[in-house]
């Protein structure tokens, strides 16, 4: 039970940050039927950098967590190899919405 496994950590939506040219966030802050995300848009790029920084800071609080993915465009969070204790520690952090164990899925 203490063996590390992959968990998916979902972070709370980060506040929209004011950038040059107006406020802009990612998809989750856009209005209904919103436009597509353009990662090359400087505002989007800055916001995704901001999200990744938050993710790194959260993971840094649990020593030894090994990240495999950082998600920013459709999901604010990351996947990391963690022990159950590390996962519980992360879940208790403010700004962390949920910690899901990685699950197998298959073709339908």
């Amino acid at each position: 039970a203490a063996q590390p496994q992959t968990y998916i950590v979902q972070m709370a939506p980060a506040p929209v940050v004011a950038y040059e040219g107006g406020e802009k966030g990612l998809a989750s802050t856009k209005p209904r039927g919103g436009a597509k995300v353009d990662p090359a848009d400087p505002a989007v790029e800055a916001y995704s950098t901001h999200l990744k920084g938050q993710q790194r800071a959260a993971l840094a609080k649990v020593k030894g967590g090994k990240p495999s993915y950082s998600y920013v465009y459709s999901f604010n969070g990351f996947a990391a190899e963690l022990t159950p204790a590390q996962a519980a520690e992360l879940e208790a952090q403010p700004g962390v919405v949920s910690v899901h164990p990685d699950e197998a899925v298959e073709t339908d």
Partner: protein
Amino acid sequence: TSSTEGFLGLDSEDGLWAQLGGPTGGKKTPGAGEDIVIGVIDSGIWPEVASFSDRSDKKLVYQGKPKGFRGTCASAEKVGDDSWDANLCNNKLVTAQYFNAAWGGNEGVAQQLPWEFLSPRDYNGHGTHTASTAGGNYGVDVTGPAAPFGEISGIAPRARIAAYKALWSVEDGSTATGYTSDMVAAIDKAVADGVDVINYSVSGSSTDFLEPTEAAFLNAAAAGIFVAASAGNSGPDAGTVAHPGPWLTTVAAGTHDRTTTGAVVLGNGARYEGVSLSNAAVGPAPVITGAAARLSGVSIGAGARCYPASDNNGKPALDPAKVTGKIVLCERGGDIARVNSSRAVAEAGGVGMIFVNAFGNSLNADFHSVPTVHLQDTEWSAISAYAATAGATATIEKAVIANGGTAPFTAEFSSRGPLVAGNGDVLKPDVIAPGQDILAAVAPPGQGGMDFNLMSGTSMSAPHVAGLAALLQGLHPDWSPMAIKSALMTTGSDVLDGEANTDPNLIFKQGAGHVQPTSAADPGLVYESGVDDWTAFLCGSTRSVADAACDDLEAGGRSLDPSDLNTPSIGIGLLDGTQTVTRTVKNVDDKAATYSATVSGLAGVGVTVEPSTLTVAPGETASYSVTFAVGEETQLFDYLAGQLSWTDGTHTVRSPIVLRAKQPGDED
């Protein structure tokens, strides 16, 4: 596919293909699904298939990448695998990438699945099948055993394909699996690349609106991306439907009108009709049951099932001394791929197979290793009794392939409601589409060397809807994903299962109904929703949203009751005396119209629609409420169902309703 476009009316004179300028697979002119990118998150892609070529007669027929699309093509791996080259992408297959960190990267895949390609190349065949169904080129000649079917076309034949491999195959190709962390990575990349539609023919949660892939799909939908997902293959049991998110379109599977009829005639003269693709008759030949044909000393605990060595720890189940020259009666079941049963017969020297379901299940047209007829479980006892008699013989007739059969019916395997998540306040599946015996391109390694094969599953119905969404987006560039979903739902027809459309069992199978694309192109009214609506819904159905955010939404006038989410269906988990739900419709026609409401079903429940007529200008919205009241005659605690229809004389905008009722104060 070879015939479902016709079944759906896409190729009719007023069909969606004609409205979009024709399929035009081999021409340079615009056509069906032009420049819409369908992101397929699956087991990869077989790029050499003509369905994904950007050329016709060596001339380019797709020009560049669609505007705003940023996807790239994976590079060749340098170590241990030469399956891929970045040049395999083209202007039709605009992206191919792969995700396997959860397996330990390429090294992990190489160790655990040594047959797999360390690249976007599809070993399994499933991803190639779903991609070619959704958006493969028009008029591709079928080769190999499936050649008699003629040509195949994708539902949106001029769409572009973006392949994201995150499922990895078992060696025999019977399934492919993956991990949520890789799936979310693929979704995230598809959103960043700028796809317009996502197809997700993959299992998923039935209980959690914010399971990571569901949450990722929420934001994909918020970014303007239509998502089609499989309802699951756990039917006919109730309460099995997966992919609960109201921001995506969950697709059940039905039959279509192409029939593949076969029969077996026993030596006693009894004839049993089922499904078959046998291109030649066989017999009369001695018939033997799989149990009687068992190799001595083999113990696999399954009476008359026929296992090949690959499914039985390297030991075949059938004895060539008993089987050679005979037709074998095999029971379907276990974890064996259907085609592996006939392979076991062929490997033991058998000449034919009578394949019988172990319980009520679908009959599937599969390409088997020996001439085969697939029969329902109800035929088992008579045939097995006869097969046990001395001198028993059988003849398997040549199959007859024809169009125009009675359809659609719900596929037995198709998962159905009620949805576990949401306590009955959300209806799933949303729609039903063809998903049984679908012919499309595949990858040869996992499909017995074939380039084209028939597959069955909600995996096959979802890409039909993904393709339709691409067509509707091409026709109506200003429509949101929820408008497309609404149009597909409110214009559906009923499956022919025999129940009334006010029977909850039917609604739990078909959702809003069977897709009717020509009608969906002109729905009259649509139901929209967006991020704030979904967040309010999550406030009322989960504990995942911060209280402050929910308070703000409520203060802004949004209801947190999940039943109030502005979906084209109405679900009330427990009607406690009375409840009023509200909906807002938008007129997407170019004319003002006055609609009148009618409600059918919901016996014993008082239903009041207020107002009962709506006049809506083009582009404008109008709201209405529906009040449900428990009466003395209401059947309590059972599901009750009905249909709410708005009609203006031209359009009918239909919403299914499912609820359970209780008297105030009663306990569930």
